[in-house]
């Protein structure tokens, strides 16, 4: 009974964490191994997610229900986008078939409980890696797949340009959605920059965009990925000319590293997720893409790639519980990091070069431990 109460408290903590984004007051940690909602199959308690997934024959992947470029619902019930492609990549590694994914659209409020209740195996749901989420709510984070950050968008007709900073917005009216960390970040950021802003908060971000369109606010702010998507759609539909809306440079208003999240204390499953992501990084680093992976498998350019693609005898995938060609399947069926990035995000106007999402030797942060 006490165990069950502890879980109940933990679930409440998760809801609070999911809603507020920062719940410093919660002290109870969620022991993942006491989750009572254990399914009949698989290991049941802690760990065993890999065995559970293999027994089920498909991956249950938690994604956002609408995140432009990251998870967009399609009319066959599947999802397209950057996050959705990483779900496919995991399925390709585990099953050798990128289509064996059951996408579970989760809302921001219920994503963590869905993970804890074992309704999803992994979250690829533009979830920011924060200390409180890592420690308090019973999840662990994998390598960051996309470095996002809060940005500000203004209209060129008001004298803003691509180089504007928070110092330039003194006295401006700024729209954002209420109750998120976005609101807190911008207030703190403006105070640091010494600018006075008038904050207009609305319930949801689309409403903030409506206010921005109608001229009720001069500026609008959210994560950069959201702003780029909105601007892309407005340009595409002919609503504005290219360059009418300008997005300020990625000033350090906030850091939003987005990546996979899985239940804590399940190293076997964590290794699978992490190394699927790293495999896409390494392939990108060594110019092995969806287009030329067949050649690379036939004659690996480097010993590291030989191991990663499962060609050499010293491959390490079978030790992880996967097949030797698991990562070769990932690259050939889904692609390397660059393939995934370009096909989903670059068409929306997210340029990769020069951002933290570039390769490490070009000044970015996309870096992987070596495969050996």
């Amino acid at each position, binding site marked *: 009974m006490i165990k069950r109460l502890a879980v109940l408290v933990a679930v409440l903590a998760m809801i609070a964490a999911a809603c507020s984004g920062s719940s410093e007051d919660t002290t109870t940690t969620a022991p993942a191994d006491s989750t009572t909602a254990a399914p009949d199959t698989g290991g049941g308690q802690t760990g065993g997610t890999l065995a559970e997934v293999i027994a089920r024959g498909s991956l249950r992947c938690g994604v956002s229900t609408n995140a432009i470029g990251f998870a967009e619902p399609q*009319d066959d019930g599947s999802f397209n986008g950057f996050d959705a492609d990483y779900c496919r990549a995991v399925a390709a590694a585990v099953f050798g078939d990128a289509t064996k994914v059951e996408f579970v*659209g989760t809302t921001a409020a219920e994503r963590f409980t869905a993970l804890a209740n074992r309704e999803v195996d992994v979250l690829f749901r533009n979830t920011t890696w924060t200390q409180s989420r890592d420690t308090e709510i019973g999840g662990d984070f994998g390598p960051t797949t996309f470095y996002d950050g809060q940005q500000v968008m203004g209209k060129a007709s008001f004298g803003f340009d691509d180089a504007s900073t928070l110092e330039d917005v003194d006295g401006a009216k700024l729209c954002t959605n209420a109750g998120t960390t976005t609101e807190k970040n911008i207030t703190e950021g403006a105070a640091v920059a010494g600018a006075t802003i008038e904050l207009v908060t609305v319930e949801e971000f689309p409403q903030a965009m409506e206010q921005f369109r109608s001229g009720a606010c001069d500026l609008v702010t959210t994560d950069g990925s959201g702003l780029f998507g909105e601007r892309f*759609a407005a340009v595409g539909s002919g609503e504005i000319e290219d360059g009418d809306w300008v997005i300020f440079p990625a000033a350090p208003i906030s850091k939003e590293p987005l990546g996979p999240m899985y239940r804590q204390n399940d190293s076997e499953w964590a290794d699978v997720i992490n190394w699927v992501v790293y495999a896409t990084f390494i392939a990108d680093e060594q110019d092995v893409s969806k287009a030329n992976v067949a050649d690379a498998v036939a004659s690996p350019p480097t010993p590291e790639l030989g191991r990663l693609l499962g060609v050499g005898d010293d491959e390490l995938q079978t030790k992880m519980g996967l097949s030797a060609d698991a990562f070769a399947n990932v690259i050939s069926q889904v692609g390397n990091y660059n393939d995934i990035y370009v096909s989903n995000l670059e*068409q929306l106007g997210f340029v990769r070069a020069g951002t933290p999402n570039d390769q490490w030797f070009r000044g970015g942060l996309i870096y992987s431990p070596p495969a050996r």
Partner: protein
Amino acid sequence: MTDQPQGIVHGVVEDLELPPEPPPHGPKIWIQENLLGGDTPTARVLNGLLSVIFGLIALNILQYVTSYIFEPSRRWSAVTFNMKLMMVQAFPQADLFRIWVSVGIFFVLVSFSLVVWGGGGGRLSMFSLAKGIRNIGVLFMIVAIMHGAPETWNLVSLPLFTIDSPTAWSLARVVFFLLGLALFAAGFLYLRASGDAAKEQSVPVLSLLVAGMVIITTAIWLIKLPVPEGQFGETTASIARTTTGPWTILFAVAIGSYFLARVLVRVFDPALIKRILLFLWVFSYPIIIMVIQRKPVLLWGDILGGGPTVWWESGLGLFVLFSLIGGAVIWWLALSTDVTVGRVIAIAMGAVLAIGTWLVVNASNDWEDIIRDGVPESAALPLWVAIVAALAGIALIAAGLLIPDGIEIARVIGLIMGVVALLVWFVPMLFVVRFLLITFALTAIAAPSFGGSTQARVRVVAVWIALVFLVVVTFVLGEAETALEFQSTTFLGGFNFSILLAITGLVLSFPLGVVLALARTSTMPIFRLLATGYIELIRSVPMITWLFFGAVMLPVFLPDGITFDEIVRVIGIVAIFNAAYVAENVRGGLQSIGKGQYEAASAMGLSTVQSTALIVLPQAIRAVLPALVGSIIVSFKDTSLVAIIGLADVLFIAKSFVPGQTSPHNFLGTQPQMLFFIALFYWVFTFSFSRMALRYEKSIGLGEH
């Protein structure tokens, strides 16, 4: 609008000696009655002013709505392109015929029911029909004139009633206007020509329904709707054959089965057809969901026994075991006069309970360990459950030995079975066995009240066997894997899921609500207290809170090893919530039934249960039918609340899925249109349902004094 005919112009009737029928009519009278009103000239002027102001406001609203709809940049193609997504979400294209077959079954059943019960659905007077056509024509013309988006329109500058034409008179607009004119002219001229005779003549509602189907069928083949072109473009195209074809066939099937039913009613006994139809209505729904739409993979080894499954755990084994042993007990309970049989049954059941519990506990525990460390968490049976079960078993044996009256023994058996039904939740066992035991307990409690004659006994046992069959089949089908291939967790989604929630919630909540209402009006304090507590607890917490509870917190509360799918949890919550409201409605009906009904029933020799079930309840439910219909409509609309907990019902898809698509077609920013469409969609359903309910209430004479 008044109910008096307005088309006939012959001025004010001067001769007051004539009988007052028909009342005077004409444009002047109409204006006086509808726009001016009042008795004094001042009142007439003021009322006339108010009529003009509110008329202009109404026109303005209409203009705003039409200009919103017809604004060229509105991208209604988001609706047309995602229609399948909104209706059935992830259902695979190749298996889409399963959905059409489901709709077809529904259409056929409706057609048959209209013949068997509706007696043709009643008639509509030509007068109201012509009036309706005329008014629709006027509406069409106003919309055609006003459509377009006047740039200057906004509430502040109030340019009331600006009929301007920002877009040219396109062909479609002209056709629309002429259509309205034609409708108006037809209705107006008919009313004028036939005069009061229009009130005498009438057409069957069904023929109107058929005419409507024909018009819709023709329209979907001819009409062109906006479709997306490229990522941002939009063009118009005819509706795809894959949509028009099935609908045409469905309408043809509906009309065909109507005439087939008319023939069948003449050939066979209508009472028999009624009974078969009732059976089909009850069973068509689970079959549609579980078999037709789910496409289960049946494992015959599990169903018939053999292979790895022990035979008594297979579907067939469970069915045979429970219907034979349970059937024998129920057979006796339904006419519990033979004391000897009662003793045997009570002692046998008590022995099974007590000894069975002992064996299970003994096999899984070392008693010395328990005495030293307490009960381990891995125990097959919680200790308190074992103790209660053993005591219940001993009580049954004692009752069998001591009580000299068969009916009293039957009561004790019913009581103990109720306790057992509660206990099974805490004992790990096959889920289907849990449900069978609960079903048995309920049937055992009800059996003495509905038994009596041999015929009644047979009926009770037949009901029991049917229930066992239903439970076993539901579990066999529910546990089977689906053969559908799609990239989502469930085959249910979109409007299909909304319907499932509404119907299943209704079917489950109705019996529960009736039981709660009876309990709340019961003379026994414990039942009254429990029912009141339940109803007040459920009703005083918002539904969305209960939904969050079911979606997020229920998994934590359930005993170890018991898990439900999120959809099942939400259906349960919907049923539990609606039951409280049904209970309050039914209670209102129960209170309206006089005490004399009970007394008369008991004078006839009916027991309390019989008089309640057969005399009082039917009258009570009939009395509160309008309120029940109201709560059904509310619960249908309330299913859209599941969108908030992220389940993909039709609202969630429209609100969240569609406005998130950027490729292949970009629908960002279409959220207002999608919500507009969903509002219209729900309105069509709830409005037609409430109209149908109104007709039904009138046909059974409710609301007339």
